[in-house]
């Protein structure tokens, strides 16, 4: 018998055997309708029957409450893991958008941004941000987080939870909340990589991550999310519901984007980015496949970022949030695709990805408060905004942002915060920030909400840009923030880490810019690639 016939015979025997086996025994509960019933409740509570008494009812209510919080914990943790996965997407995105000679440096920054900012947030940041946030009803109150600086409606800084220890914060509710919040901080932390890529020193970058995890992100985050003064603008100044930012267009993305802007200004543009006449020279990213994969991974992670921000699956608005998020992402990508095609003759791959992320960033604040049609509008405007903004930062402000981080996260984050004040339709947000009624934007009759959003956005810009700028013009006195020109031209992988991301390939250094002869210029100056040098900024 040939081998093929043997295989065929074996498959036939297996098929017959499977049919016979399928007839053996009873089917216990294949449909799943009988599993999980009163016997599980009795087993869990150690009773023999449900007693019809106050005590019996209390037991039942306790079990229900525990179950409610368990469901919410599961939701919060799983969505937190999804947000954690966004780190993968971002690593792919920014590495793909930069040159092969720096790929190891880019990946190492993504790894270290995670671990360093996480430890800074654990030690200090979390307490600053959420030390006074209690109660958080959906996860059982998070009671220990109950102390803050600032009086009444003017909270400034949380105080419980340093090292997840002070103020009795060794607590399951606090831990679940920490996990979800720390991955949000990581998002702001890795945004800055996109703008400082290909020229920042690893040492300077580590300082940026410590500052982000301990100070820059948590303090503004406290003002909006941790019971701070911006959240209470509704109660103190009667401005709608105060600053409303559902999942962090402002708190996470704009903060990361504006901090990135400050760092990009301090570092100055990459060598050769601007020609002598001021025109922009493109440095094509080395792997657009990474860029697309990264964007799709980020979109997947956003399914945790936004829907998870209810802190619980018992809030069924999560379905609206998830759908709105996908609508805005698609609208943003389509807009960028169409705009680049109309403007430059071909759809731009990386700008289409930026458009998708722009839609996601913009819908992050309003996703729970707006209708599906409004998500499309918000995503479309974000798609246009990111296309124009990349041009503005390149050509008008002359800020070199290799991955478009400032445009995607800063500008579209700002737009997202404002969009809440325009499109919130009053179907959600009862008692948000302690104000009775639902959240309504200008188009639904509450102009005060828009004012609160404007204040929140302006304060966010001043804080994130200003504090980052101040910290780093001081720090650069002692810490070298930018690599030497010869290192920048050869690629950062070897000089910073002694290793290459792609050791088996001959990589192109920027010898074609004609900058090598400028490297003999006096120290403190940077080659431009056009036979001129500029003072290091």
């Amino acid at each position: 018998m040939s081998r093929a016939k043997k295989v065929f015979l074996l498959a036939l025997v297996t098929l017959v055997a499977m049919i016979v086996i399928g007839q053996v025994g009873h089917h216990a509960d294949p449909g799943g309708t009988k599993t999980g019933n009163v016997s599980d409740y009795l087993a869990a509570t150690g009773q023999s029957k449900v007693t019809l008494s106050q005590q019996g009812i209390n037991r039942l209510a306790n079990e229900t409450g525990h179950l409610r919080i368990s469901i919410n914990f599961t939701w919060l943790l799983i969505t937190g893991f999804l947000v954690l996965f966004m780190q993968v997407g971002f690593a792919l995105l920014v590495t793909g958008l930069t040159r092969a000679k720096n790929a190891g440096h880019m990946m190492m920054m993504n790894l270290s941004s995670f671990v360093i900012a996480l430890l800074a947030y654990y030690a200090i940041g979390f307490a600053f941000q959420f030390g006074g946030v209690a109660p958080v009803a959906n996860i059982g109150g998070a009671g220990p987080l109950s102390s803050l600086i600032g009086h009444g409606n003017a909270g400034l800084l949380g105080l419980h939870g340093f090292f997840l220890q002070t103020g009795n914060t060794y607590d399951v509710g606090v831990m679940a909340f920490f996990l979800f919040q720390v991955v949000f901080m990581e998002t702001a932390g890795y945004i800055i990589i996109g703008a400082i890529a290909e020229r920042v020193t690893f040492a300077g970058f580590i300082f940026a991550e410590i500052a982000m995890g301990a100070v820059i992100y948590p303090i503004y985050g406290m003002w909006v999310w941790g019971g701070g003064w911006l959240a209470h603008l509704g109660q103190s100044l009667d401005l709608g519901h105060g600053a409303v930012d559902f999942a962090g267009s402002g708190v996470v993305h704009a903060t990361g984007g504006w901090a990135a802007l400050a760092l990009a200004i301090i570092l100055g543009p990459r060598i050769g980015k601007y020609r002598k006449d001021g025109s922009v020279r493109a440095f094509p990213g080395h792997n657009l496949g990474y860029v697309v994969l990264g964007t799709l991974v980020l979109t997947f992670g956003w399914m945790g970022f936004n829907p998870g921000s209810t802190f619980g699956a018992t809030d069924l608005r999560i379905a609206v949030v998830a759908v709105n998020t996908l609508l805005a992402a698609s609208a943003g990508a389509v807009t960028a695709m169409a705009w680049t095609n109309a403007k430059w003759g071909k759809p731009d791959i990386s700008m289409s990805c930026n458009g998708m992320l722009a839609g996601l960033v913009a819908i992050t604040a309003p996703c729970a408060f707006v209708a599906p049609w409004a998500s499309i509008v918000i995503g479309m405007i974000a798609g246009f905004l990111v296309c124009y903004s990349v041009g503005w930062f390149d050509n008008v402000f002359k800020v070199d942002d290799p991955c478009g981080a400032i445009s995607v996260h800063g500008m579209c984050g700002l737009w997202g915060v404002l969009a809440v004040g325009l499109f919130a339709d009053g179907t959600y947000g009862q008692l948000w920030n302690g104000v009775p009624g639902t959240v309504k934007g200008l188009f639904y009759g509450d102009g005060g909400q828009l004012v609160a959003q404007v204040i929140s956005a302006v304060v966010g810009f001043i804080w994130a840009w200003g504090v980052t700028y101040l910290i780093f013009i001081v720090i650069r006195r002692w810490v070298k923030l930018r690599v030497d020109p010869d290192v920048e031209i050869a690629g950062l992988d070897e000089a910073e880490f002694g290793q290459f991301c792609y050791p088996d390939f001959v990589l192109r250094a920027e010898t074609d810019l004609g900058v090598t002869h400028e490297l003999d210029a006096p120290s403190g100056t940077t080659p431009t690639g056009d036979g001129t040098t500029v003072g290091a900024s």
Partner: protein
Amino acid sequence: MKLIIAVIKPFKIDEVTDALNEIGISGITISEVRGHGRQKGHTEVYRGAEYHIAYIPKLRLELVVDDADADRIVTAIMDNARTGTIGDGKFWILPIETLGRIRTGELGSDAL
């Protein structure tokens, strides 16, 4: 004997190979190269900024052939590598001083 060198568009290599095998060549060496002709590359847009692609990827073919076969082989390469648009490439022919087969030490036409 002659050395034929041709630079062609990479996607034309299968057609050229088929035509050369039909004629019955004894061997060919190809390498991936980059270069430009009179157009000096072309310009594309990346995220709104123009950038210049100075060197276009091409394939470089090298064949050593008998003098009598050179014309037919060059014609086959031309006919099969041609698209009619710019950048179809070039060929040139050089005389060979010596040819040897490393394995046996044969010289001249015997080594073809």
